[in-house]
Protein backbone atom coordinates (compact mmCIF):
# COMPACT_ATOMS: atom_id res chain seq x y z
CA UNK A 1 0.00 0.00 0.00
CA UNK A 2 1.30 3.41 -0.86
CA UNK A 3 1.66 6.26 1.55
CA UNK A 4 -1.31 8.21 0.33
CA UNK A 5 -3.85 5.67 1.41
CA UNK A 6 -2.63 5.20 4.93
CA UNK A 7 -4.55 6.63 7.78
CA UNK A 8 -3.01 10.07 7.95
CA UNK A 9 -5.13 11.30 5.08
CA UNK A 10 -8.19 11.08 7.25
CA UNK A 11 -6.96 13.54 9.82
CA UNK A 12 -9.25 16.08 8.32
CA UNK A 13 -8.03 19.59 7.90
CA UNK A 14 -5.65 19.43 10.84
CA UNK A 15 -2.77 19.29 8.48
CA UNK A 16 0.90 19.31 9.08
CA UNK A 17 2.37 22.78 9.25
CA UNK A 18 4.82 23.02 6.46
CA UNK A 19 7.65 25.48 6.59
CA UNK A 20 6.37 28.96 6.23
CA UNK A 21 8.06 31.97 4.77
CA UNK A 22 6.86 35.47 5.42
CA UNK A 23 5.42 35.56 1.92
CA UNK A 24 3.01 32.72 2.59
CA UNK A 25 -0.51 33.97 2.60
CA UNK A 26 -3.25 32.94 4.95
CA UNK A 27 -4.97 29.65 4.45
CA UNK A 28 -8.44 29.92 3.11
CA UNK A 29 -11.27 27.65 4.22
CA UNK A 30 -13.93 27.48 1.56
CA UNK A 31 -17.28 25.86 1.91
CA UNK A 32 -18.15 24.38 -1.43
CA UNK A 33 -21.76 23.38 -1.36
CA UNK A 34 -24.30 22.15 -0.38
CA UNK A 35 -25.60 24.71 -2.83
CA UNK A 36 -23.02 24.97 -5.54
CA UNK A 37 -23.36 24.59 -9.29
CA UNK A 38 -20.76 21.87 -9.57
CA UNK A 39 -21.29 19.56 -6.63
CA UNK A 40 -23.97 17.55 -8.40
CA UNK A 41 -26.66 18.00 -5.86
CA UNK A 42 -26.13 18.59 -2.20
CA UNK A 43 -22.58 17.51 -1.63
CA UNK A 44 -20.71 19.85 0.64
CA UNK A 45 -16.95 19.87 0.46
CA UNK A 46 -14.96 21.92 2.91
CA UNK A 47 -11.79 22.93 1.17
CA UNK A 48 -8.67 24.11 2.87
CA UNK A 49 -6.75 26.19 0.40
CA UNK A 50 -3.43 27.88 0.10
CA UNK A 51 -4.33 30.35 -2.62
CA UNK A 52 -5.60 28.02 -5.30
CA UNK A 53 -3.85 24.94 -4.00
CA UNK A 54 -5.90 22.39 -2.09
CA UNK A 55 -4.36 21.40 1.22
CA UNK A 56 -7.18 19.16 2.32
CA UNK A 57 -10.84 18.44 1.92
CA UNK A 58 -13.63 17.11 4.01
CA UNK A 59 -16.87 15.87 2.56
CA UNK A 60 -20.02 16.59 4.50
CA UNK A 61 -22.81 14.39 3.24
CA UNK A 62 -26.22 13.31 4.39
CA UNK A 63 -28.29 16.24 3.16
CA UNK A 64 -30.37 13.85 1.09
CA UNK A 65 -30.57 11.09 3.67
CA UNK A 66 -34.00 9.48 3.60
CA UNK A 67 -33.36 6.36 5.61
CA UNK A 68 -33.92 3.94 2.77
CA UNK A 69 -32.51 1.06 4.78
CA UNK A 70 -34.86 1.77 7.67
CA UNK A 71 -37.84 2.01 5.35
CA UNK A 72 -36.94 -1.38 3.91
CA UNK A 73 -37.42 -3.01 7.30
CA UNK A 74 -40.99 -1.77 7.40
CA UNK A 75 -42.05 -2.71 3.89
CA UNK A 76 -42.60 -6.06 2.28
CA UNK A 77 -40.12 -7.23 -0.30
CA UNK A 78 -42.38 -6.13 -3.13
CA UNK A 79 -43.24 -2.82 -1.57
CA UNK A 80 -39.62 -1.87 -1.17
CA UNK A 81 -38.87 -2.39 -4.84
CA UNK A 82 -39.77 1.15 -6.01
CA UNK A 83 -37.71 2.72 -3.23
CA UNK A 84 -34.43 1.49 -4.66
CA UNK A 85 -35.05 3.50 -7.82
CA UNK A 86 -34.81 6.66 -5.74
CA UNK A 87 -31.24 6.03 -4.71
CA UNK A 88 -29.29 6.38 -7.91
CA UNK A 89 -32.03 8.12 -9.77
CA UNK A 90 -30.09 8.47 -12.99
CA UNK A 91 -29.57 4.71 -13.15
CA UNK A 92 -32.81 3.54 -11.59
CA UNK A 93 -33.06 0.44 -13.75
CA UNK A 94 -29.71 -0.86 -12.51
CA UNK A 95 -30.79 -0.37 -8.92
CA UNK A 96 -33.97 -2.29 -9.55
CA UNK A 97 -32.10 -5.08 -11.27
CA UNK A 98 -29.73 -5.50 -8.33
CA UNK A 99 -32.53 -5.59 -5.79
CA UNK A 100 -34.77 -7.95 -7.77
CA UNK A 101 -31.93 -10.36 -8.42
CA UNK A 102 -30.91 -10.32 -4.77
CA UNK A 103 -34.43 -11.17 -3.62
CA UNK A 104 -34.77 -13.79 -6.34
CA UNK A 105 -31.60 -15.41 -5.09
CA UNK A 106 -32.96 -15.33 -1.58
CA UNK A 107 -36.17 -16.94 -2.79
CA UNK A 108 -34.14 -19.34 -4.90
CA UNK A 109 -36.03 -18.61 -8.08
CA UNK A 110 -34.71 -17.48 -11.40
CA UNK A 111 -36.27 -15.06 -13.81
CA UNK A 112 -37.21 -16.52 -17.20
CA UNK A 113 -34.84 -16.05 -20.12
CA UNK A 114 -37.06 -13.56 -21.85
CA UNK A 115 -37.23 -11.40 -18.77
CA UNK A 116 -33.49 -11.57 -18.36
CA UNK A 117 -32.91 -10.40 -21.92
CA UNK A 118 -35.31 -7.51 -21.45
CA UNK A 119 -33.52 -6.68 -18.24
CA UNK A 120 -30.16 -6.59 -19.98
CA UNK A 121 -31.45 -4.35 -22.76
CA UNK A 122 -33.03 -1.89 -20.36
CA UNK A 123 -30.09 -1.92 -17.96
CA UNK A 124 -27.62 -1.24 -20.71
CA UNK A 125 -29.82 1.54 -22.06
CA UNK A 126 -29.82 2.94 -18.57
CA UNK A 127 -26.05 2.68 -18.40
CA UNK A 128 -25.91 4.72 -21.59
CA UNK A 129 -28.27 7.30 -20.13
CA UNK A 130 -26.24 7.50 -16.94
CA UNK A 131 -22.97 7.91 -18.80
CA UNK A 132 -24.51 10.55 -21.03
CA UNK A 133 -25.68 12.52 -18.05
CA UNK A 134 -22.24 12.15 -16.54
CA UNK A 135 -20.54 13.34 -19.72
CA UNK A 136 -22.74 16.38 -20.04
CA UNK A 137 -22.36 17.53 -16.47
CA UNK A 138 -18.68 16.68 -16.30
CA UNK A 139 -17.98 18.71 -19.43
CA UNK A 140 -20.10 21.52 -18.05
CA UNK A 141 -18.05 21.52 -14.87
CA UNK A 142 -14.88 21.85 -16.88
CA UNK A 143 -16.44 24.71 -18.78
CA UNK A 144 -17.61 23.16 -22.03
CA UNK A 145 -21.28 23.99 -22.04
CA UNK A 146 -22.29 22.53 -25.37
CA UNK A 147 -21.91 18.76 -24.80
CA UNK A 148 -24.50 18.98 -22.03
CA UNK A 149 -27.24 19.78 -24.50
CA UNK A 150 -26.10 17.16 -26.97
CA UNK A 151 -26.11 14.43 -24.36
CA UNK A 152 -29.45 15.49 -22.96
CA UNK A 153 -30.92 15.43 -26.45
CA UNK A 154 -29.79 11.84 -26.90
CA UNK A 155 -30.61 10.73 -23.39
CA UNK A 156 -34.13 11.89 -24.09
CA UNK A 157 -34.51 9.11 -26.68
CA UNK A 158 -33.62 6.52 -24.04
CA UNK A 159 -36.08 8.00 -21.60
CA UNK A 160 -38.76 7.85 -24.28
CA UNK A 161 -38.15 4.13 -24.65
CA UNK A 162 -38.44 3.72 -20.87
CA UNK A 163 -41.59 5.74 -20.81
CA UNK A 164 -43.16 3.64 -23.51
CA UNK A 165 -42.10 0.47 -21.76
CA UNK A 166 -43.22 1.20 -18.22
CA UNK A 167 -44.75 4.64 -18.12
CA UNK A 168 -42.00 6.29 -16.12
CA UNK A 169 -38.93 8.07 -17.34
CA UNK A 170 -36.59 8.38 -14.43
CA UNK A 171 -37.62 6.22 -11.50
CA UNK A 172 -38.81 3.45 -13.71
CA UNK A 173 -39.56 0.53 -11.42
CA UNK A 174 -39.20 -1.52 -14.57
CA UNK A 175 -38.62 -4.96 -13.02
CA UNK A 176 -40.49 -7.05 -10.53
CA UNK A 177 -39.14 -9.75 -8.27
CA UNK A 178 -39.21 -12.81 -10.48
CA UNK A 179 -39.04 -11.11 -13.84
CA UNK A 180 -40.64 -8.14 -15.49
CA UNK A 181 -44.19 -7.04 -14.94
CA UNK A 182 -44.63 -5.60 -18.40
CA UNK A 183 -44.39 -7.29 -21.72
CA UNK A 184 -42.46 -5.27 -24.28
CA UNK A 185 -44.63 -2.95 -26.28
CA UNK A 186 -45.19 -3.36 -30.00
CA UNK A 187 -42.18 -2.17 -31.91
CA UNK A 188 -39.90 -2.19 -28.87
CA UNK A 189 -37.19 -4.01 -30.76
CA UNK A 190 -37.55 -1.81 -33.79
CA UNK A 191 -37.33 1.35 -31.73
CA UNK A 192 -34.30 0.18 -29.80
CA UNK A 193 -32.61 -0.70 -33.07
CA UNK A 194 -33.49 2.70 -34.44
CA UNK A 195 -32.03 4.26 -31.35
CA UNK A 196 -28.79 2.33 -31.81
CA UNK A 197 -28.45 3.67 -35.34
CA UNK A 198 -29.25 7.13 -34.08
CA UNK A 199 -26.87 7.23 -31.16
CA UNK A 200 -23.73 5.66 -32.61
CA UNK A 201 -22.77 8.72 -34.67
CA UNK A 202 -23.74 10.93 -31.74
CA UNK A 203 -21.10 9.34 -29.52
CA UNK A 204 -18.58 10.08 -32.26
CA UNK A 205 -19.84 13.63 -32.13
CA UNK A 206 -19.14 13.95 -28.39
CA UNK A 207 -15.70 12.52 -28.90
CA UNK A 208 -15.06 14.96 -31.72
CA UNK A 209 -15.90 17.83 -29.43
CA UNK A 210 -13.75 16.71 -26.54
CA UNK A 211 -11.30 13.86 -27.04
CA UNK A 212 -8.68 15.84 -28.92
CA UNK A 213 -9.66 19.26 -27.67
CA UNK A 214 -6.44 20.73 -26.33
CA UNK A 215 -8.00 22.48 -23.40
CA UNK A 216 -10.00 19.40 -22.48
CA UNK A 217 -6.90 17.23 -22.59
CA UNK A 218 -4.91 19.74 -20.54
CA UNK A 219 -7.66 20.00 -17.99
CA UNK A 220 -8.07 16.25 -17.56
CA UNK A 221 -4.69 14.65 -18.19
CA UNK A 222 -2.84 13.87 -14.95
CA UNK A 223 -5.66 15.34 -12.90
CA UNK A 224 -6.97 13.33 -9.96
CA UNK A 225 -4.64 10.44 -10.53
CA UNK A 226 -5.34 7.26 -8.62
CA UNK A 227 -3.43 4.03 -9.00
CA UNK A 228 -4.93 0.58 -9.16
CA UNK A 229 -3.55 -0.24 -5.72
CA UNK A 230 -5.08 2.85 -4.21
CA UNK A 231 -8.38 2.13 -5.91
CA UNK A 232 -8.54 -1.34 -4.45
CA UNK A 233 -7.49 -0.17 -1.02
CA UNK A 234 -10.18 2.47 -1.04
CA UNK A 235 -12.77 0.12 -2.47
CA UNK A 236 -13.25 2.26 -5.55
CA UNK A 237 -15.01 0.36 -8.30
CA UNK A 238 -16.54 0.91 -11.68
CA UNK A 239 -15.03 2.98 -14.46
CA UNK A 240 -12.69 4.67 -11.97
CA UNK A 241 -11.09 1.33 -11.12
CA UNK A 242 -10.97 0.27 -14.74
CA UNK A 243 -9.33 3.54 -15.78
CA UNK A 244 -6.53 2.70 -13.38
CA UNK A 245 -5.85 -0.45 -15.32
CA UNK A 246 -7.77 -3.15 -13.45
CA UNK A 247 -9.76 -5.21 -15.90
CA UNK A 248 -12.59 -5.96 -13.55
CA UNK A 249 -16.24 -5.80 -14.34
CA UNK A 250 -18.85 -7.75 -12.40
CA UNK A 251 -20.66 -8.50 -15.64
CA UNK A 252 -17.63 -10.62 -16.56
CA UNK A 253 -16.20 -11.50 -13.14
CA UNK A 254 -19.40 -12.80 -11.61
CA UNK A 255 -21.92 -12.73 -14.43
CA UNK A 256 -25.57 -12.22 -13.64
CA UNK A 257 -28.77 -11.91 -15.67
CA UNK A 258 -28.10 -12.83 -19.29
CA UNK A 259 -24.67 -11.29 -19.52
CA UNK A 260 -22.78 -14.54 -20.13
CA UNK A 261 -24.54 -14.77 -23.48
CA UNK A 262 -23.04 -11.62 -24.84
CA UNK A 263 -19.72 -10.75 -26.27
CA UNK A 264 -18.21 -7.50 -25.09
CA UNK A 265 -14.94 -5.99 -23.97
CA UNK A 266 -13.98 -4.39 -20.69
CA UNK A 267 -12.32 -1.10 -21.60
CA UNK A 268 -9.39 -0.20 -19.36
CA UNK A 269 -7.13 2.81 -19.02
CA UNK A 270 -3.55 3.04 -17.90
CA UNK A 271 -2.93 6.25 -15.99
CA UNK A 272 -5.95 6.41 -13.79
CA UNK A 273 -6.37 10.11 -14.47
CA UNK A 274 -9.46 12.03 -15.36
CA UNK A 275 -8.79 11.74 -19.07
CA UNK A 276 -8.55 7.95 -18.88
CA UNK A 277 -11.77 7.77 -16.95
CA UNK A 278 -13.36 9.83 -19.67
CA UNK A 279 -12.03 7.52 -22.37
CA UNK A 280 -13.09 4.42 -20.43
CA UNK A 281 -16.63 5.68 -20.04
CA UNK A 282 -16.84 6.62 -23.69
CA UNK A 283 -15.70 3.11 -24.59
CA UNK A 284 -18.20 1.65 -22.18
CA UNK A 285 -20.96 3.48 -23.98
CA UNK A 286 -19.92 1.80 -27.20
CA UNK A 287 -19.73 -1.58 -25.47
CA UNK A 288 -23.21 -1.07 -24.08
CA UNK A 289 -24.42 -0.43 -27.61
CA UNK A 290 -22.76 -3.68 -28.63
CA UNK A 291 -24.54 -5.60 -25.88
CA UNK A 292 -27.89 -4.08 -26.73
CA UNK A 293 -27.33 -4.83 -30.38
CA UNK A 294 -26.69 -8.49 -29.58
CA UNK A 295 -29.52 -8.78 -27.08
CA UNK A 296 -32.23 -7.05 -29.02
CA UNK A 297 -31.91 -9.40 -31.98
CA UNK A 298 -32.48 -12.56 -30.01
CA UNK A 299 -34.89 -11.89 -27.17
CA UNK A 300 -36.34 -15.37 -26.64
CA UNK A 301 -40.04 -16.03 -26.47
CA UNK A 302 -41.61 -17.23 -23.28
CA UNK A 303 -43.04 -15.98 -20.05
CA UNK A 304 -41.74 -12.86 -18.42
CA UNK A 305 -42.48 -13.82 -14.83
CA UNK A 306 -41.24 -16.78 -12.89
CA UNK A 307 -43.60 -18.62 -10.58
CA UNK A 308 -43.34 -16.83 -7.31
CA UNK A 309 -45.70 -16.93 -4.37
CA UNK A 310 -48.14 -14.07 -3.98
CA UNK A 311 -46.94 -13.50 -0.45
CA UNK A 312 -43.19 -13.60 -0.43
CA UNK A 313 -41.65 -15.23 2.60
CA UNK A 314 -38.05 -16.05 1.88
CA UNK A 315 -36.51 -18.64 4.16
CA UNK A 316 -34.38 -17.44 7.05
CA UNK A 317 -30.96 -16.53 5.78
CA UNK A 318 -28.98 -13.79 4.20
CA UNK A 319 -27.68 -12.92 0.80
CA UNK A 320 -25.22 -10.47 -0.70
CA UNK A 321 -25.72 -9.82 -4.35
CA UNK A 322 -23.98 -7.16 -6.37
CA UNK A 323 -24.16 -5.95 -9.93
CA UNK A 324 -22.10 -3.64 -12.06
CA UNK A 325 -24.04 -0.40 -11.92
CA UNK A 326 -22.85 2.46 -14.14
CA UNK A 327 -20.98 3.87 -11.16
CA UNK A 328 -19.41 0.72 -9.80
CA UNK A 329 -20.30 -2.24 -7.66
CA UNK A 330 -23.84 -1.90 -6.37
CA UNK A 331 -24.48 -4.50 -3.70
CA UNK A 332 -27.53 -5.54 -1.70
CA UNK A 333 -27.10 -7.40 1.56
CA UNK A 334 -30.47 -8.73 2.63
CA UNK A 335 -31.19 -10.56 5.86
CA UNK A 336 -34.44 -12.48 6.01
CA UNK A 337 -36.11 -13.67 9.18
CA UNK A 338 -38.72 -15.67 7.31
CA UNK A 339 -41.38 -13.00 7.42
CA UNK A 340 -42.82 -10.92 4.61
CA UNK A 341 -40.58 -8.02 5.45
CA UNK A 342 -36.82 -8.06 5.17
CA UNK A 343 -35.12 -8.05 8.55
CA UNK A 344 -32.33 -5.87 7.27
CA UNK A 345 -31.44 -4.46 3.87
CA UNK A 346 -28.05 -2.98 3.40
CA UNK A 347 -27.19 -1.20 0.18
CA UNK A 348 -23.57 -0.99 -0.79
CA UNK A 349 -23.62 2.18 -2.87
CA UNK A 350 -20.79 2.70 -5.33
CA UNK A 351 -21.01 6.50 -5.21
CA UNK A 352 -20.62 6.57 -1.44
CA UNK A 353 -17.48 4.49 -1.48
CA UNK A 354 -16.02 6.20 -4.55
CA UNK A 355 -16.56 9.62 -3.04
CA UNK A 356 -14.21 8.64 -0.25
CA UNK A 357 -11.33 8.76 -2.72
CA UNK A 358 -11.97 12.45 -3.45
CA UNK A 359 -9.74 13.70 -0.66
CA UNK A 360 -6.79 11.65 -1.79
CA UNK A 361 -7.25 12.52 -5.44
CA UNK A 362 -7.32 16.28 -5.00
CA UNK A 363 -4.66 16.90 -2.39
CA UNK A 364 -2.07 19.25 -3.82
CA UNK A 365 -4.21 19.99 -6.85
CA UNK A 366 -6.00 23.24 -7.66
CA UNK A 367 -9.56 24.27 -6.98
CA UNK A 368 -10.51 23.72 -10.58
CA UNK A 369 -9.29 20.14 -10.28
CA UNK A 370 -11.61 19.49 -7.37
CA UNK A 371 -14.49 20.23 -9.68
CA UNK A 372 -13.06 18.02 -12.38
CA UNK A 373 -12.55 15.17 -9.92
CA UNK A 374 -16.02 15.42 -8.42
CA UNK A 375 -17.34 15.24 -11.94
CA UNK A 376 -15.17 12.32 -12.93
CA UNK A 377 -16.10 10.27 -9.86
CA UNK A 378 -19.65 10.38 -11.19
CA UNK A 379 -21.47 10.50 -7.91
CA UNK A 380 -25.19 10.76 -7.41
CA UNK A 381 -26.05 12.24 -4.08
CA UNK A 382 -29.24 10.28 -3.80
CA UNK A 383 -27.13 7.20 -3.67
CA UNK A 384 -24.43 8.62 -1.44
CA UNK A 385 -26.92 9.68 1.20
CA UNK A 386 -29.70 7.15 0.62
Amino acid at each position, binding site marked *: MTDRTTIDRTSHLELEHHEKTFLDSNELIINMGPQHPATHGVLRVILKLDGEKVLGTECVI*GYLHRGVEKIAEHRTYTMFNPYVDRMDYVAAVSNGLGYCEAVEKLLNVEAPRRAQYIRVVLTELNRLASHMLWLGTHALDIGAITPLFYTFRDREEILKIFEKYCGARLTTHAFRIGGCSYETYDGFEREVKKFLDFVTPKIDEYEELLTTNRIWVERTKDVGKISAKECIALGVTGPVLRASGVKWDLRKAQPYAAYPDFDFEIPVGQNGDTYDRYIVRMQEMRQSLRIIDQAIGKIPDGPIMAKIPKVMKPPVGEIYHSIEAPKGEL*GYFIVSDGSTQPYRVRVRPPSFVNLQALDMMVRGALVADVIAVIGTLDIVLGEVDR
Partner: protein
Amino acid sequence: MISRLKGQHGSGIREANTYLGQKYVVADSSLIPELLQVLRDQEHFDYCVDITAVHYPDREKQFEVVWILYSFPRNERIRVKASYAEVESVPSAVPIWPTANWLEREVFDMFGIRFEGHPDLKRILLPDGWKGHPLRKDYGIIQQDQEWVQINLGIESGQ
Protein backbone atom coordinates in the same frame (compact mmCIF):
# COMPACT_ATOMS: atom_id res chain seq x y z
CA MET B 1 -9.37 -22.21 2.59
CA ILE B 2 -11.94 -22.53 5.29
CA SER B 3 -10.37 -25.69 6.56
CA ARG B 4 -7.05 -23.92 6.61
CA LEU B 5 -8.55 -21.12 8.64
CA LYS B 6 -10.15 -23.57 10.96
CA GLY B 7 -6.88 -25.39 11.40
CA GLN B 8 -5.13 -22.17 12.30
CA HIS B 9 -7.67 -20.66 14.59
CA GLY B 10 -9.51 -23.69 15.84
CA SER B 11 -12.31 -22.88 18.11
CA GLY B 12 -12.32 -19.18 17.22
CA ILE B 13 -14.22 -19.97 14.06
CA ARG B 14 -17.72 -20.76 15.24
CA GLU B 15 -19.17 -21.60 11.91
CA ALA B 16 -17.90 -21.66 8.34
CA ASN B 17 -20.42 -22.52 5.71
CA THR B 18 -22.03 -21.56 2.47
CA TYR B 19 -25.57 -20.41 1.99
CA LEU B 20 -26.98 -20.09 -1.53
CA GLY B 21 -23.46 -20.48 -2.81
CA GLN B 22 -22.05 -17.68 -0.70
CA LYS B 23 -19.31 -18.35 1.82
CA TYR B 24 -19.50 -16.94 5.27
CA VAL B 25 -17.52 -17.28 8.44
CA VAL B 26 -18.86 -16.62 11.90
CA ALA B 27 -15.97 -15.85 14.17
CA ASP B 28 -15.39 -15.10 17.78
CA SER B 29 -15.22 -11.36 18.33
CA SER B 30 -11.82 -11.67 19.96
CA LEU B 31 -10.44 -13.25 16.82
CA ILE B 32 -11.64 -10.55 14.43
CA PRO B 33 -8.56 -8.29 14.19
CA GLU B 34 -6.30 -11.19 13.56
CA LEU B 35 -8.69 -12.88 11.18
CA LEU B 36 -9.21 -9.81 9.01
CA GLN B 37 -5.48 -9.25 8.80
CA VAL B 38 -4.91 -12.86 7.83
CA LEU B 39 -7.66 -12.74 5.25
CA ARG B 40 -6.09 -9.75 3.57
CA ASP B 41 -2.44 -10.74 3.78
CA GLN B 42 -2.53 -14.47 3.30
CA GLU B 43 -5.82 -15.14 1.57
CA HIS B 44 -5.62 -12.05 -0.70
CA PHE B 45 -8.95 -10.55 0.19
CA ASP B 46 -7.63 -7.19 -0.87
CA TYR B 47 -10.95 -5.43 -1.35
CA CYS B 48 -13.32 -4.71 1.49
CA VAL B 49 -16.67 -4.44 -0.23
CA ASP B 50 -18.77 -3.43 2.70
CA ILE B 51 -18.97 -3.25 6.45
CA THR B 52 -22.38 -3.29 7.99
CA ALA B 53 -24.26 -4.52 11.02
CA VAL B 54 -27.51 -6.19 11.92
CA HIS B 55 -29.32 -5.51 15.16
CA TYR B 56 -30.79 -8.47 17.07
CA PRO B 57 -32.30 -6.95 20.23
CA ASP B 58 -33.19 -10.37 21.63
CA ARG B 59 -29.71 -11.75 21.62
CA GLU B 60 -27.27 -11.36 24.41
CA LYS B 61 -24.77 -9.78 22.08
CA GLN B 62 -27.06 -7.47 20.19
CA PHE B 63 -25.03 -6.48 17.16
CA GLU B 64 -23.78 -8.68 14.42
CA VAL B 65 -21.13 -6.86 12.43
CA VAL B 66 -20.60 -8.10 8.91
CA TRP B 67 -17.50 -7.63 6.79
CA ILE B 68 -18.03 -8.44 3.14
CA LEU B 69 -14.71 -9.09 1.46
CA TYR B 70 -13.68 -9.77 -2.08
CA SER B 71 -10.49 -11.09 -3.52
CA PHE B 72 -9.42 -9.83 -6.92
CA PRO B 73 -6.92 -12.63 -7.57
CA ARG B 74 -9.38 -15.37 -6.59
CA ASN B 75 -12.61 -13.71 -7.78
CA GLU B 76 -14.27 -14.83 -4.60
CA ARG B 77 -16.35 -13.26 -1.90
CA ILE B 78 -16.54 -14.05 1.78
CA ARG B 79 -18.60 -12.68 4.62
CA VAL B 80 -17.08 -12.47 8.06
CA LYS B 81 -19.51 -12.07 10.92
CA ALA B 82 -19.03 -11.48 14.59
CA SER B 83 -21.36 -10.54 17.42
CA TYR B 84 -20.81 -7.68 19.80
CA ALA B 85 -22.67 -6.39 22.78
CA GLU B 86 -23.68 -2.75 22.92
CA VAL B 87 -20.89 -1.78 25.27
CA GLU B 88 -18.19 -3.53 23.33
CA SER B 89 -16.21 -1.73 20.67
CA VAL B 90 -15.22 -3.30 17.40
CA PRO B 91 -11.63 -3.19 16.16
CA SER B 92 -11.41 -0.78 13.26
CA ALA B 93 -10.47 -2.15 9.87
CA VAL B 94 -9.14 1.18 8.63
CA PRO B 95 -5.47 0.13 8.99
CA ILE B 96 -6.25 -2.93 6.89
CA TRP B 97 -8.53 -1.40 4.26
CA PRO B 98 -8.69 2.41 4.13
CA THR B 99 -12.13 2.13 2.58
CA ALA B 100 -13.42 1.01 5.97
CA ASN B 101 -13.27 4.61 7.11
CA TRP B 102 -16.61 5.84 5.87
CA LEU B 103 -18.25 2.45 6.09
CA GLU B 104 -17.45 2.24 9.79
CA ARG B 105 -18.58 5.79 10.30
CA GLU B 106 -21.89 4.87 8.77
CA VAL B 107 -22.24 1.83 11.01
CA PHE B 108 -21.46 4.01 13.99
CA ASP B 109 -23.99 6.56 12.78
CA MET B 110 -26.75 4.06 12.23
CA PHE B 111 -26.14 1.59 15.06
CA GLY B 112 -23.97 3.36 17.58
CA ILE B 113 -21.30 0.71 17.40
CA ARG B 114 -17.95 2.18 18.34
CA PHE B 115 -14.89 1.24 16.35
CA GLU B 116 -11.65 1.04 18.26
CA GLY B 117 -8.78 2.77 16.47
CA HIS B 118 -10.88 4.58 13.91
CA PRO B 119 -9.12 7.86 13.05
CA ASP B 120 -12.18 10.07 12.91
CA LEU B 121 -15.24 8.34 14.27
CA LYS B 122 -18.19 10.70 13.97
CA ARG B 123 -21.58 10.75 12.37
CA ILE B 124 -21.58 10.78 8.60
CA LEU B 125 -25.13 10.89 7.28
CA LEU B 126 -27.00 12.34 10.22
CA PRO B 127 -26.15 15.71 11.73
CA ASP B 128 -23.47 15.74 14.37
CA GLY B 129 -25.75 16.58 17.27
CA TRP B 130 -28.43 13.99 16.49
CA LYS B 131 -29.53 11.70 19.27
CA GLY B 132 -30.30 8.07 18.61
CA HIS B 133 -29.19 5.52 16.06
CA PRO B 134 -31.93 4.91 13.54
CA LEU B 135 -31.17 1.44 12.26
CA ARG B 136 -31.56 -0.11 15.71
CA LYS B 137 -34.72 -2.10 15.97
CA ASP B 138 -35.95 -0.05 18.92
CA TYR B 139 -35.83 3.16 16.89
CA GLY B 140 -39.27 3.75 15.41
CA ILE B 141 -39.65 4.48 11.74
CA ILE B 142 -41.16 7.91 12.24
CA GLN B 143 -39.11 8.70 15.31
CA GLN B 144 -37.05 11.86 15.21
CA ASP B 145 -34.73 13.81 17.41
CA GLN B 146 -37.39 16.45 18.03
CA GLU B 147 -35.08 18.59 20.10
CA TRP B 148 -32.55 18.79 17.29
CA VAL B 149 -35.25 19.60 14.76
CA GLN B 150 -36.67 22.34 16.94
CA ILE B 151 -33.34 23.95 17.66
CA ASN B 152 -31.77 23.68 14.25
CA LEU B 153 -34.69 23.97 11.89
CA GLY B 154 -36.88 26.20 13.99
CA ILE B 155 -39.97 24.09 13.34
CA GLU B 156 -42.13 22.14 15.75
CA SER B 157 -41.65 18.80 14.10
CA GLY B 158 -40.20 17.38 10.95
CA GLN B 159 -43.20 15.16 10.30
